């Protein structure tokens, strides 16, 4: 079971869309896949039309009094399940803190699912917090969408420093450009500069496109309502590159 976190310190950069679309692609290759919607806003849950509600809330889940297995919901797509969000997830930091070794908690909770799933995508809320630390401990890959702006570049540097300081050597950071607007000169220039400085940035990038926004109307991953398109191709390239890097 490979655990992949979709994370950025900043919000609104395409984390949920990344988790949802890559998970859909994994499942369409017949890999048993789970998305855990850790964001109390419940955007992933919304895209899969699953109520953002977990019986007993985040506290019971994190303490282990309710097993993950019991709250997982099938999505409309074969091989793809969802662990929905809950409004109480806004207090996951507190729930984690109430346990011993809080940063190891998510890893322990996910362990029993190892035989069942090939891929787990963690859709994370923004900010660096106890929860994100626990996510970093649990994950093998940290997929981080970055909008090609100066501010995003700063957050990437912050994230790299954080990983280095915390000595998270098991964690493979894979940043990639997201919401790229090819008409903007600034985006193009930024991308060139940033790649020179951060060669670990993936070659695949996700465009800023209306069909990604359409996911909110359709309430399903891109691949479920369109056969082809720029955005879909972009996620397919991202999936292929992710697979290659993980090997």
């Amino acid at each position, binding site marked *: 079971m490979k655990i992949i976190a979709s994370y950025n310190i900043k919000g609104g950069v395409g984390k949920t869309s990344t988790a949802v679309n890559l998970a859909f692609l994994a499942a369409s290759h017949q890999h048993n896949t789970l998305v855990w919607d850790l964001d109390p806003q419940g955007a992933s849950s919304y895209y*899969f*039309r*699953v*109520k953002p509600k977990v019986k007993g809330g985040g506290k019971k889940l994190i303490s282990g009094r309710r097993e993950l297995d019991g*709250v*997982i*919901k*099938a999505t*409309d797509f074969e091989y793809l*399940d969802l662990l929905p969000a809950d409004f109480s997830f806004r207090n996951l930091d507190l729930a984690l803190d109430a346990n011993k070794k809080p940063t190891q908690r998510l890893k322990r909770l996910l362990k029993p699912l190892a035989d069942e799933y090939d891929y787990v995508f963690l859709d994370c809320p923004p900010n660096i917090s106890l929860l994100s630390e626990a996510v970093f401990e649990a994950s093998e890959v940290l997929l981080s969408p970055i909008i090609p702006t100066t501010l995003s570049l700063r957050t990437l540097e912050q994230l790299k420093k954080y990983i280095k300081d915390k000595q998270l050597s098991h964690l493979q950071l894979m940043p990639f450009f997201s919401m790229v607007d090819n008409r903007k000169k600034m985006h193009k220039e930024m991308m060139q500069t940033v790649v020179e400085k951060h060669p670990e940035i993936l070659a695949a990038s996700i465009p800023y496109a209306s069909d990604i926004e359409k996911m909110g109307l359709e*309430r399903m991953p891109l691949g479920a309502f369109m056969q082809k398109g720029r955005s879909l191709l972009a996620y397919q390239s991202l999936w292929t590159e992710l697979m290659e890097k993980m090997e």
Partner: protein
Amino acid sequence: MTEPPLYFELPGSLKGKKFFSKIEKKLLLQITGQHYAIKTFYDTFDWRLYRAGVVAEHIHSKDVSQFNLINRKTGRLLASDSLETAPNFAQQFSSQALKSILLPIMEMRALLQVSHLPLEIYRANILNKDEKTVLRLQLDDYESLSGRIHLLPLRGYGKSLNKVAAVLQSDLSVKPASCSVLPEALQLQGREVKDYSSKFSLKLKPDMRADQAAKLIFKTLLADIKLNEANTITDVDTEFLHDFRVAVRRTRSGLNQIRGALPETAVKKYSEFFAWLGQITSLTRDLDVYLLSYQDYRGVLPIAMQDDLEPLYAFLKEKQIKAQKNLAERLVSAKYQKGLIEWEEFLNKQVSKKAKANQGNLSIKALADQRIWKVYCKLMSEGGVIDDQSPPESLHDLRKTCKKLRYLLEFFQSLYDETEMKTLIKALKGLQTVLGDFQDYEVQENNIKTFSQEMMENHVGGNAILAMGVLIQHLDAKKRDAREHFSDQFAGFANQDIKRIFEKLFFRKKV
């Protein structure tokens, strides 16, 4: 809480479209697919898959051709593969998942089509108010049977399953059903599952006249001969001939053992006919056995020598093809057909008011008591004098006596207490196994020696002869092993508990 049913049967009048128009009034539903298909059920002739709780079905449509193995009780899919046609034997499946389930169950038996059903398959999703799928549904709308619904629950949506199961039962009068329509499909052909078994099974009444009961026994055996005849001729698998021969052997033994119940002339005539049938079928069966044992033969050789045995396989196969051809010709010959028809006519002829044979007027129970007790005593006296120095012939004779007793116990099983009869048959089986092994190893050892001489004359390479030499040594060691186990097995059979049951059931003081 009890789990709701997942399979339902539609009332006969409720066909596909009508069902959906009715259910749409109660539930939010989206039909996701509809296609015409042919469902073909498979099993071995003796229903090995069904007996092991497995249903094999092949679904063939314009776009899909799928072979599925399904748990008969739960409906769970055990293994599946896309296959245009199903192969004949388990080892011919390319899917490892299918092979690993099928091989231990089917062994050497062929997979046969048992029923075809044309149907329309509908797939639908049951949605909640967010238009999220909460349950999947499949309707198999058969042309010649009432439709079947299969609910496919989705993780985390147990409540929806309960709700839909309740709606189906209360609002649409749909009844829970078993997960496979195989029994109903067979009914359409006037058949039923497990309608063949190589085990002898016949219910006799104790006071039935012996000649009448004897004819019933032989009719049952004749039915087995006829059932296996066609596929023996076409050599579908080795076990048709095996079962054919068992029925012939049982008939011969019966003619000999209960001869007093039937007219002497008839016994003489048909004993000769069945002896001939036994003789013309024996070579093919022997060669079948060698070919079936071939992998075991390879296995006893050192790895480096295993491939050296290949010429033996080719030699045996060539012989088997010839023998099978001869056998097939004999089984369509006038002699065979005339013999079998006359036998059937003889069996169908009403018995006269007073039996013509000496023991024909006895009750079958009285005759069974006499015969079983007599053969049991013979077995005990023959076995009791065998020691380590006794010649192999004495063990072979004892094996034959055991077989006679075994057939008698099986013929007359229904006349006695079931548990006690099972105890006796089980005890006898142990003894028969060791005697059978002794005989088989000896025959195989001798025959492989003969084959090696024949092969040498045909200038087959020295390595093959060398490998056969190692095999002969192994068979000889196994034969000696069996010989050593004899006294323990015989002691097990000759014990007081078994003796008491024999006495209780069959010994009658002469008045």
